[in-house]
């Protein structure tokens, strides 16, 4: 704790002597706000990553469906979410869709929307990134040689079994790098939730700088924080890629 105190003291001195005010380094209130923002961004990212991968998996599976109607629906979904700005999508969900849904009564008896702003952020970003994931997984699935799936078919695998045990494990390895890029984009996209008042990192930083008047410093902190978050994600994706590498096989 002694060294933490020393660091805090040094930042306090820095602010006083040179006017470089990194308030979150010494001010408990600002720091708490910032950490809340950080944790919101982290869990928002994780939730969206998991859900968008699920959307991608299901969508890619449905793209191979027999029914042309199902395939057209998936194609339409992908086009819609890929070709419109994510901020507009978010606003559409939060303002237009939400208003069309019934209100519910919460535990305190107040009338609240069925899905709150955080909920809409999770849904909106998961669908947005999920649409890209569908395309990414599809390209991976298309890269799996047909002869390999035919071998599974000849061994009695159903389409679903072949997808689960053969196609997907191979397709996933092929498209991991592209998936990684999309997830990095997704993490950065979560800042848009600021627009509907979700207390994520950008929102928290803005709260800090509007009261402490240290916009410049907080901008730098914000950028560095994103660099760190994305670095963790990239590190994790690379580890995953290495773990899944097949000896003697280059996809």
């Amino acid at each position: 704790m002694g060294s933490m105190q020393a660091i805090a003291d040094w930042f306090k001195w820095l602010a006083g002597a040179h006017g470089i005010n990194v308030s979150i380094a010494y001010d408990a209130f600002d720091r708490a706000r910032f950490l809340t923002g950080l944790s919101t961004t982290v869990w928002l990212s994780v939730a969206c990553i998991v859900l968008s991968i699920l959307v991608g998996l299901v969508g890619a599976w449905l793209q191979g469906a027999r029914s042309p109607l199902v395939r057209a629906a998936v194609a339409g979904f992908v086009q819609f979410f890929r070709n419109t700005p994510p901020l507009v999508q978010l606003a559409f969900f939060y303002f237009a869709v939400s208003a069309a849904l019934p209100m519910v009564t919460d535990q305190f008896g107040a009338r609240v929307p069925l899905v709150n702003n955080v909920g809409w952020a999770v849904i909106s970003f998961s669908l947005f990134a999920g649409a890209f994931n569908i395309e990414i997984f599809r390209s991976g699935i298309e890269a799996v040689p047909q002869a390999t799936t035919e071998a599974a078919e000849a061994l009695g695998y159903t389409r679903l079994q072949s997808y689960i045990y053969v196609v997907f494990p191979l397709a996933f390895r092929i498209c991991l790098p592209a998936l990684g890029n999309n997830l990095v984009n997704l993490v950065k996209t979560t800042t848009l939730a600021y627009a509907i008042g979700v207390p994520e990192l950008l929102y928290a930083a803005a709260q800090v700088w509007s009261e402490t008047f240290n916009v410049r410093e907080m901008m730098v902190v914000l950028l560095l924080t994103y660099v760190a978050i994305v670095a963790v994600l990239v590190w994790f994706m690379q580890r995953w890629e290495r773990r899944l590498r097949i000896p003697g096989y280059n996809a």
Partner: protein
Amino acid sequence: MSHELGAPIVVIDAIEKRFGALVVLRDISLTVRRGECVCVIGPSGSGKSTLLRAINALVPVSKGSIRVDGIEVNDPDLDKLALRRKVGIVFQQYNLFPHKTALENVMMAPLHVLKQPKDEVEARARRLLAKVRLSDKEGAYPGELSGGQQQRVAIARSLAMNPTLMLFDEVTAALDPETKKEVLVTIRELAAEGMTCMLVTHEMGFAAEVADHIYFTDGGTIVEHGPPAEFFKNARHERTRAFLDQVL
């Protein structure tokens, strides 16, 4: 090879296969009996692969009947799983699952498709790999194996389903002479054990040695067929003789 031939396992009756306007198989009929080893030879594009693939319903036929151990293949209500439990197929390009080790490749279908208990499946997979002389490669991935080794894993993988019939489609075509031999030895042993086999091959020497019956196809029809001794010595048709002159 001579052994007692049993009841018919495959009965093909007047099948036809078209790809659009192209007729690939026309009026093909043949019978394979239990324990028999049948070789199909013929020039490229004559429909040999299509014929084998029709037998396990990888390609639907347009006309005629294919019965495999009592199952009608040309039937919209075909129980594909029941058929594929009976029929193993090995391809020219091995087509192993690259993300699984040799042992896992052999274990997968019995585990996933037949839902057999794992320890039982594993013990059998080890025995099968031993049978194709690959006990030392159980943990190797396909990418770490030679073509001949991969092909033997592919054979073991098919055998793991305990098929009544094995189909081999030019399984040595992609291999060099050295590794070819390993694979041919494996097939010869299987045939000697009484496995019912149907194989497409360009190895005339091997066909002559291992086959009970040889079919020569050209242009989607069976031009002539007979036991190897007769077939190779006294081919009746000009077309057959021309083909044999070219390949022998």
